[in-house]
């Protein structure tokens, strides 16, 4: 990919606006219309009055973006944990405070809610909010059970309200640029999808007193969360469906608690394989007792490997270097390589040392600002962006299926009933 093809986020979004939101880019990402420059202009001057349910770390992260979105006005905050509510109030001192989300939903000044609570609460809160006539932005994963995800999807349809799930990668320009080329087949067919997330930390938050352990460290307990599969994997699993345009037909996996044996109930290491109808596999692997490889999302095509978070393309046949560089490399090899007296019968296939080509070096952020902007615009216009909820639904379903496959020790299949 040559430099002149590289564009930054601003010009990418402007281009979408400039081409009337038509063409290949938007057919692959139809939801982007909701945060295009023209849509932002159309909603300028209007405000959506937001209530934040859950002002913990994730909730406040979202609030930090809402502060800068002209169409957003945070008027109410809710959290059952007092210190978190206070921290939220420091960001929006004029917002009314609640400790029960139903009281917030009774507040007539609230047009829409942002839900950033433990996973097990998503279903009830989203259903109640939609029933009360509010638009909803809910953090991922969608819900704890597949049936709940489906009910939420159907409720949105029946109420006609807006429902966003916090899959910010859907709005990340780096991902769009890469996916646009992959879907177009520029790099040949997709042959594998690798997702991994490695950390070396216990995933715990400090607890001021023991009775608050489960409330604060809810991610570690099965009652509230499915751990790595719903808190991390659901972000990455949409890469496979996005790149292949298909849903996996089966999933198998393994997981256990191998290092952090501190009373937690969710796995601290998982390895899951999803298989698409054409036999292509997608893996998700996560270990939280070794951080060496960090986080990675790689689409392996016949002719190139695309590193999505790193925003780089590694071609199977890298562009040839100039003659002078090749000559110097050959001389270096002759001078510094070891003498070989007898050839080996087998050579290890070492990884390519190619440094790849940048896809979008100027891109900033992870899409969170854009998805929140899109949510506010959608609340104001009343138009639900196409496909965005379906993408979130399936990534949540895949995460839940993966966890169930590990728990049951069986290969699970994508049932007809899961399809929406």
């Amino acid at each position, binding site marked *: 990919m040559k430099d002149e093809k590289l564009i930054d986020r601003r010009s990418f979004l402007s281009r979408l606006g400039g081409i009337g939101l038509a063409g290949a880019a938007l057919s692959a990402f139809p939801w982007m219309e909701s945060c295009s420059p023209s849509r932002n202009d159309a909603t300028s001057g209007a405000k959506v009055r937001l209530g934040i349910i859950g002002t913990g770390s994730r909730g406040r992260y979202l609030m930090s973006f809402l502060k800068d979105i002209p169409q957003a006005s945070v008027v109410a905050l809710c959290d059952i944990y007092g210190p978190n509510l206070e921290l939220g109030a420091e960001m929006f001192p004029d917002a009314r405070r609640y400790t029960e989300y139903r009281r917030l939903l009774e507040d007539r000044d609230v047009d829409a809610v942002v839900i950033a609570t433990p996973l097990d609460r998503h279903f009830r809160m989203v259903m109640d909010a939609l029933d009360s006539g509010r638009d909803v932005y809910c953090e991922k994963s969608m819900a704890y059970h597949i049936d709940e995800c489906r009910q939420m999807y159907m409720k949105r349809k029946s109420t006609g309200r807006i429902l966003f799930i916090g899959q910010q990668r859907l709005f990340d320009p780096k991902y769009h640029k890469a996916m646009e080329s992959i879907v177009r087949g520029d790099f040949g067919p997709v042959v594998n999808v690798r997702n991994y997330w490695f950390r070396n930390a216990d995933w715990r938050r400090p607890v001021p007193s023991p009775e608050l352990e489960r409330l604060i460290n809810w991610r570690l307990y099965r009652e509230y969360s499915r751990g790595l599969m719903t808190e991390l994997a659901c972000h990455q699993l949409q890469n496979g469906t996005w790149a292949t345009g298909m849903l996996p037909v089966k999933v198998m996996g393994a997981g256990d608690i191998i290092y952090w044996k501190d009373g937690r109930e969710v796995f601290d290491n998982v390895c899951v394989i999803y298989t698409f109808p054409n036999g292509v596999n997608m893996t998700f692997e996560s270990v939280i007792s070794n951080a060496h490889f960090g986080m990675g999302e790689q689409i392996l095509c016949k002719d190139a490997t695309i590193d999505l978070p790193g925003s780089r393309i590694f071609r199977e046949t890298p562009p040839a270097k*100039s003659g*002078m560089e090749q000559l110097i490399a050959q001389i270096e090899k002759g001078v510094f390589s070891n003498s070989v007296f007898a050839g080996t019968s087998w050579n290890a296939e070492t990884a390519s040392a190619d440094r790849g080509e940048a896809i979008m070096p100027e891109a900033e952020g992870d899409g969170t600002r854009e998805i929140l902007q899109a949510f506010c615009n959608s609340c104001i216009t009343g138009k639900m962006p196409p496909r965005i909820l379906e993408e979130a639904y399936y990534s949540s379903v895949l995460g839940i299926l993966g966890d169930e496959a590990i728990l049951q020790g069986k290969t699970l299949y994508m049932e007809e009933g899961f399809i929406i």
Partner: protein
Amino acid sequence: MFKDSVITARRKRRELAVALVCFGLAVLINVYSIIRFNCPWSEFFTQIGFVILLAACIYAVLAAVRLAVHAVVSIVRRCRG
């Protein structure tokens, strides 16, 4: 302590000639690598930066060799004289 030094016209001509020879040698290496690795002939021009850099390197190596020879000759002459 410091004396004025004079660079003669002959010396300037000689250094210019040496630099030109180095540049020519670098161009020849570029031509060789284009042929050797089947690269496009546009590299004759696009690699000019590399060629100049290579010419400078050759000139520097030659300068070091010439200085060393000059030093050895001076020492030998001093010993004899």
